């Protein structure tokens, strides 16, 4: 039986939630932006009026104000957006148990099996659209198709508050003439490369020989070719609410932060690294894993960035070992030729924490066990009294010491694969 897949995308999610809660700003161009004093001063979302004035997501607040002088900029309220995201998911769950979230504002639904109860895919899309408007006061764009890629394409095709159905009869007319960059996973780099070979539209990509694409792009070439031809058969992954959004196989755990001021010396970097590692290591222990690799991400104030990674001698979930590895990695790879704006710590190569560890003659395993016990105690205290109840001495006595990466951590769109 042919699948029926819906992709629902909440229009200008943050901006429209703010408009709902602040009736007085509804008639103005509105954007949600980070705090410039904490140096998060970029546009996160904008409503239709601001969009019409040319405001773009990701640009600096002053750039947006220049384009659109009457712009109302609201500070973000993540708790509220998370609540709306959950409520929207509850509405989706009325029509299917197979709901896969893609960030806070997007989701795929596989409604193949409920179409007989509720009518066609389009009928379900209409019901969802109405329910979200009535119950949440915001609008959605929904794409209906037989695969996830075209469903997503459909939700992007008409905005706001629209439903686009893409069938096997009309996809050549709707999808194929569109430019190549509109296809999921064709970013600026891939787009440039494709254009070099004279591939400008999705249709041209679909009609290119797959062998040629594989030759140029490796296995991604085949994936893109299948996407363009509507041959994608990846399933909508059911979401288990108890599992806190980690329903996919975890590949890595990381936290990064744009600090309130530039980091100028090793002391600053150590402070932030410890702070991030506390969060990363605690999340690692919560998932019951050890990591084998530690990676850091550094962005300078000129916005150049690089990542470096290193293998650990032994699988570990110890805060201290991970932090020391990250700091050593930093010291070996950066010379403070420019101040640092943003720093990240990530652990990958995860293995279950039941994995046996090869002991060695010179290492002090007793010490590692004591460290692990200490970490467990700290975790327990933090769970009971908050993440800031116990802190490392290095992180005290600085204006940045109040940052709490673990609590502020939000799950953002994850890769498609």
């Amino acid at each position, binding site marked *: 039986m042919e699948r029926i897949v819906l992709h629902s995308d909440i229009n200008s999610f943050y901006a429209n939630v703010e408009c709902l809660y*602040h009736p007085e700003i509804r008639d103005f161009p509105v954007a949600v932006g980070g705090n410039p004093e904490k140096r998060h001063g970029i546009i996160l979302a904008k409503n239709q009026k601001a969009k019409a004035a040319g405001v773009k997501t990701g640009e600096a607040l002053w750039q947006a104000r220049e384009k659109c002088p009457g712009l109302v900029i609201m500070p973000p309220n993540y708790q509220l957006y998370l609540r709306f995201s959950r409520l929207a998911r509850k509405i989706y769950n009325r029509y299917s148990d197979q709901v896969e979230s893609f960030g806070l504002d997007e989701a795929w639904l596989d409604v193949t099996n409920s179409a007989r109860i509720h009518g066609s895919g389009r009928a379900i899309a209409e019901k969802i659209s109405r329910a979200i408007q009535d119950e949440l006061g915001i609008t959605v764009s929904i794409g209906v198709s037989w695969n996830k890629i075209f469903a997503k394409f459909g939700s992007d095709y008409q905005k706001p508050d629209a439903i686009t159905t893409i069938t096997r009869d009309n996809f050549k007319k709707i999808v194929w003439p569109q430019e190549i960059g509109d296809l999921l996973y064709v970013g600026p780099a891939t787009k440039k490369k494709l254009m070099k070979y004279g591939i400008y539209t999705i249709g041209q990509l679909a009609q290119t020989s797959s062998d040629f694409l594989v030759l140029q792009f490796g296995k991604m070439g085949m994936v893109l070719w299948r996407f363009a031809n509507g041959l994608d058969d990846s399933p909508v992954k059911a979401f288990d609410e108890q599992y806190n959004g980690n329903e996919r196989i975890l590949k890595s755990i990381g936290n990064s932060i744009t600090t309130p001021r530039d980091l100028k010396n090793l002391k600053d970097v150590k402070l932030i690294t410890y702070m991030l590692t506390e969060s990363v290591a605690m999340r690692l222990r919560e998932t019951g894993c050890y990591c084998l690799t530690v990676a850091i991400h550094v962005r300078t104030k000129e916005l150049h960035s690089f990542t470096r990674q290193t293998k650990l001698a032994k699988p570990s979930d110890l805060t201290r070992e991970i932090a020391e590895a990250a700091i050593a990695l930093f010291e070996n790879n950066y010379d403070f030729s420019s101040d640092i704006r943003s720093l990240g710590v990530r652990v990958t190569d995860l293995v279950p924490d039941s994995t046996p560890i090869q002991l060695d003659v010179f290492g002090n395993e007793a010490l590692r066990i004591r460290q692990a016990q200490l970490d467990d105690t700290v975790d327990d205290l933090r769970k009971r009294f908050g993440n800031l109840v116990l802190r490392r001495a290095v992180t005290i006595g600085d204006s940045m010491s109040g940052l709490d990466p673990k609590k502020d951590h939000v799950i953002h769109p994850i890769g498609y694969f």
Partner: protein
Amino acid sequence: MAIKKFVQVIAKFEEDGRIIPLQVLWEDGRVFSIDRVLDMRPGVSLKVGGQGIRYTCRIQNKEVCLYYEEPKWFVESKER
């Protein structure tokens, strides 16, 4: 313009988890008994900006929308 007015509410918690408001206590001491809940469903207040369970209630022969926006209750009020 209407404003979002948070109010005290006395409510009954049913065995099945539903919450039924019984009385609204106004800040000046007046008590408004809810004669009947006509409708309850998730809803938004576009007038004052809010989202929660919307209870359409009959109070003194008037229809009033009372919202439960966890953990607070509010009404769309004309008064300051």
